[in-house]
């Protein structure tokens, strides 16, 4: 792939009271690429996402998205610069309908006064319908989102990110708790939405990783252990050692 690099992370370190959760990590993700990060528990996968979206502040190192240094911005600015993040447990507004969930995520009227005067225009409705179709929830637009199935909640959260049209989409265990058929659909969904942007996925289900990953990064104790396509990573003796042996 000769696409240009969208996200470049260099020498990223974060230390919690001396414990280095992420240690001098460098990572490059291209545009249109779907990258999967795997690793054992405590490898620092979620922390890397936290660092990118500003939830955790880096101790040192740089995170650069399309030429903008992200580490110095607050969370909401990072989102506005084009980073979307899905949390591990579905994080949606259970008291609101699917439509309202998507509407709140629509990237307009984000200030206090902007939100007071925000109107559901034709354009907004159109976009909501479009996204709802992508995430298989067209029939549920007026359903209170707390009543959706676990898998549908996961899709809704992905949709809430899609409506912002982010440059970088980060998904933390998107298929956790999904049925087999839901997994199939999600794999198709991910393959579709990585067009025109970069996607980072954290996942444990190796079958699923095989289906979606363009490239796999293996983290271990906050450091990069291996990187490459699924096959080369699976046959990498260091990876086998970490996953199987002691």
């Amino acid at each position, binding site marked *: 792939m000769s696409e240009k690099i969208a996200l470049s992370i260099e020498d990223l370190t974060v230390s919690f009271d001396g414990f280095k959760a992420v240690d001098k990590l460098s990572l490059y993700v291209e545009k249109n690429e779907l990258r999967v990060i795997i690793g054992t528990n405590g490898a620092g996968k979620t922390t890397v996402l936290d660092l990118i*979206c500003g*939830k955790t502040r880096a101790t040192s190192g740089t995170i650069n998205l399309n030429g903008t240094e992200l580490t110095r911005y*607050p*969370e*909401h600015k990072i*989102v*506005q610069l084009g980073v*979307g*993040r899905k*949390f591990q447990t579905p*994080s*949606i*507004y*259970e*008291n*609101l309908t699917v439509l*309202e969930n998507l*509407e*709140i*995520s629509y*990237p307009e*009227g*984000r*200030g*206090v006064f902007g*939100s*007071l*005067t*925000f109107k559901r225009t034709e354009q907004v409705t159109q976009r909501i319908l479009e996204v709802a179709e992508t995430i298989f929830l067209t029939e549920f637009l007026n359903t209170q989102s707390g009543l959706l199935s676990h898998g549908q909640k996961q899709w809704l*959260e992905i949709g*809430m990110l899609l409506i*912002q049209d982010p440059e970088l989409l980060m998904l933390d265990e998107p298929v956790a708790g999904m049925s087999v058929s839901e997994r199939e659909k999600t794999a198709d969904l991910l393959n579709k939405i990585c067009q025109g942007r970069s996607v980072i996925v954290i996942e444990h289900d190796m079958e699923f990783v095989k289906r979606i990953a363009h490239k796999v990064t293996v983290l271990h104790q906050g450091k990069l252990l291996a990187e490459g396509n699924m096959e080369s990573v699976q046959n990498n003796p260091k990876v086998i050692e970490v996953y199987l042996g002691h």
Partner: protein
Amino acid sequence: MNALLNRALGERRGAIGLAVLAVIIFLIMPLALDIFRLNLVGKYLTYAFAAVGLVMVWGYGGILSLGQGVFFGFGGYCMAMFLKLEASDLASTAHQTTPGIPDFMDWNQVTQLPMIWQPFHSFAFTVFAIIAVPLLISYIISAAMFKRRVGGVYFSIITQAIAAILTILVVGQQGLTGGINGITDLKTLNGWNINTDSAKYLLYFINGALLFGVIMVCNLVLSSKLGRLLLALRDKEDRVRFSGYDVANFKIFIFCMGAVISAIGGAMFTLQVGFMSPSIIGIVPSIEMVIFAAIGGRMSLVGAVYGTLIVNYGKTAFSESFPSLWLLFMGAMFIGVVMVFPNGLAGLYQSYLKDRVALVLSRIKKVKSSDPLKVVKAES
């Protein structure tokens, strides 16, 4: 324009609730009560502003403020300062050491009107200050807290501390504020005597109209995207933040809004009751305001008004006969709200009465639609 009005009234369901409340406040109360009792209801309704503000701040914003009395006090004191200056003209204060200044200043050996009192000669400035002072103070408090992500219980404790500090300050600065007695002996507003019965009637109606105005503005805010954002914030704050919103700004907005609403009530309190004192702005009244909102239902603007009226009526009725039992009774009510009906009276209505009311309404409709003439018309 019509759509905006519709939103302000709270759509059809809200409009019915507002209409019922309007009939009670503007028709039944004035007809059934003498002016002394009506004036009392007017006083209760000024507390209802604080309770309505708390519905916005606590119910929808999820921020429990135990210092709403502070803002009530800012509004009340601003109004009282204006009225006091008008009551302290040279003729009626001729016997003082320094004529032309409020009497309590004279008692405290103050010989010149303090700087911060000067602009309160102007009514226009006073109205401006009633809004601007609580807005500024609440902005400073909330920005300092929410930008640093202080919230929950910590914020509540800080607001309570502010209520305590302010009371001590007001009591301590006797020459400036009238101390523990407050600002009393208020007479006229721009030459209009506010102590006559006719003035009290008029003030009661102005107060009621303002309360309805405030509720309608609240409805507008709640029906906008901001209202849905507030619900979303209470549910999943991080999701809102990571959807590109500066969460602190929304909390600051709703806290300031609650403060200003409370201050309007305070100003109307001074006008109707005729004085302002620290006993109305401290910790106890602030917590009472929370109880009004809790009993009425913290998610219901109209419910907060009923809650205020009922609790205060109970307070007056009880403390006339058993003064010492009242506090215990109020405590019991609060425990009842927390344990038995967490959504207050509005919640009870929703779960027990609403369906029956709907049934009755639909029956009335059926009777109307079975009007033979109409059926014939529809067929032909």
